């Protein structure tokens, strides 16, 4: 039986291939790794190691994000307006305001845009800057007044009427700098400016820009844990305040569970279903001081101190590549919707224990809320 040359060639190639596989595999296995053990840097001057700005397992950092926030209907109660700056007859801190006006908010919410762009992102410094916009629009009806019998909101200054027509806007510019000082220790500095109010395209006086600051000194204990302590000047609950800050981020060794805590601003537990979806549960404080143009007379600035506590759960899921979606559901608890009149627009410090009188004492019933959005994130 004749064997063709072609068949012999194929057979030899096959034999060679079978024999070659272990040879190549052996080359991989027999790599002498020890030769890399005692290597030295060519230039070992000025070699410094730095702590990384994150730990593993954290929810993705959002570079760009657009979301829609919406609260379910709730009842609003407004007191009479007293202007302590001009008359010295405001509402005491411990005093309950009268019920001068009531209304029902059918809708509260609007679009939110957040950005957090790296300007410098190196191992020895990370500087991120971001412009943010938040709209709190209102659809308010059933406005009833006890001020002047039979009067309609158009004949007097009605805060629910103004909110219904104008809503509240916030433009924010935040800069965050991460400064590692060693392989473990780091400093985070953050500064923010906010322009908040009932303004439209005309904006409002720039002396009503409110600024916040935070500084946190921390230690990155391992890939799975970091903590920090610091101090912040914040408007998180409406009024300007100085509060201590505690950071505590940890991820379990199986990377399923963790925490993302920057107390008191936000406290979250975290559960990762897999690499592409996770659940956050906890709360966030949200607030700003909003100038109401319509109530601001002479040089003074009349400002609503809006502060909310938002216990919530948030599902985050990767859509594709760096695009993630989130769905948040929670309960919006009214912390403050009172108002102050600021002489000349200048801020003052009441804190937790100050006794400066309020210009208005208002109450919002609590309500369910939802937030849904899409983000461009770092993986």
């Amino acid at each position, binding site marked *: 039986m004749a064997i063709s040359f072609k068949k012999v060639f194929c057979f030899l190639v096959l034999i060679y291939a079978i024999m070659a596989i272990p040879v190549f595999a052996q080359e*991989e296995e027999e*790599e002498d*790794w020890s*030769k*890399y*053990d*005692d*290597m*030295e*840097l*060519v*230039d070992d001057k000025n*070699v410094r*190691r*730095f702590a*990384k700005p994150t730990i*593993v397992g954290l929810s993705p950092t959002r*570079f760009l994000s657009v979301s829609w926030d919406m609260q379910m209907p709730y009842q609003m109660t407004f007191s009479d307006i007293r202007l302590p700056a001009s008359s010295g007859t405001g509402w005491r801190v411990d005093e309950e305001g009268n019920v001068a006006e009531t209304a029902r908010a059918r809708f509260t919410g609007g679009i939110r845009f957040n950005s957090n*762009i*790296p300007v410098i*992102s*190196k*191992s020895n410094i*990370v500087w991120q800057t971001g412009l943010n916009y938040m709209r709190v629009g209102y659809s308010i009806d059933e406005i009833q007044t006890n001020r002047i019998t039979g009067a309609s909101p158009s004949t007097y200054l009605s805060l629910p009427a103004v909110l219904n027509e104008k809503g509240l806007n916030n433009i924010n510019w935040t800069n965050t700098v991460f400064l590692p000082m060693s*392989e473990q220790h780091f400093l985070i500095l953050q500064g923010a400016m906010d322009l908040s109010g009932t303004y439209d395209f005309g904006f409002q006086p720039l002396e009503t820009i409110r600024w916040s600051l935070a500084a946190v000194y921390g230690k990155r204990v391992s*890939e799975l844990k970091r903590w920090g302590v610091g101090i912040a000047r914040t408007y998180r609950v409406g009024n300007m305040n100085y509060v201590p800050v505690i950071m505590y981020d940890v991820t379990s*060794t199986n*990377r399923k569970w963790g925490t993302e805590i920057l107390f008191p601003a936000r406290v979250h537990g975290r559960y990762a279903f897999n*690499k592409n979806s996770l659940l956050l549960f906890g709360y966030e404080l949200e607030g700003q001081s909003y100038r109401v143009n319509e109530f601001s007379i002479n040089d003074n600035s009349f400002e609503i101190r809006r502060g909310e506590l938002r216990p919530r759960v948030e599902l985050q899921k990767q859509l594709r*590549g*760096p695009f993630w979606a989130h769905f948040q559901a929670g309960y919006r608890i009214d912390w403050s919707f009172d108002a102050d009149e600021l002489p000349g627009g200048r801020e003052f410090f009441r804190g937790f224990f100050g006794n400066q009188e309020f210009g208005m004492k208002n109450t919002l019933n609590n309500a369910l809320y939802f937030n849904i959005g899409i983000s*461009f*994130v*770092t*993986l």
Partner: protein
Amino acid sequence: MKKLILILSLSLLGTMAIAQNADDIVGVWEPGHGKARVKIDNIDGKYYGRIVWLKEPNDPETGKPKTDVNNPDASMKSVPLRGYRILKDFEYKGKGEWAEGTIYDPETGNTYSSVITWKDDNTLDIRGFVGVKTFGRSDTWRRLKVN
């Protein structure tokens, strides 16, 4: 005036510190965190880097060599980290820049677009990013002496 000339001269020297040829990148390098060493090779005109040394080669829990446990591809989770290719497909674009490659982060299991920039004879700037270079982070790698 002397100071100005000195500064200008040093600046000029700095700008001259660019790679003379594509293979200047070949060698063993240490990332900024110092926990690994990566050997960069030229394979058919493209540049690849694999981990050749780990400060902590064994998993402290099991005592066995570390594997790529964070890889999203389940079939890769048992592949040893030592020998793992974390830099892939870099092409030399001239002027001390290697681009169009990817860098893999074994700590997170994520792969990023990446560009390598020649800083000087012993230093590389490696940037991993998402989409565009702006959304990324840079690390400095230092060259190791090959015995």
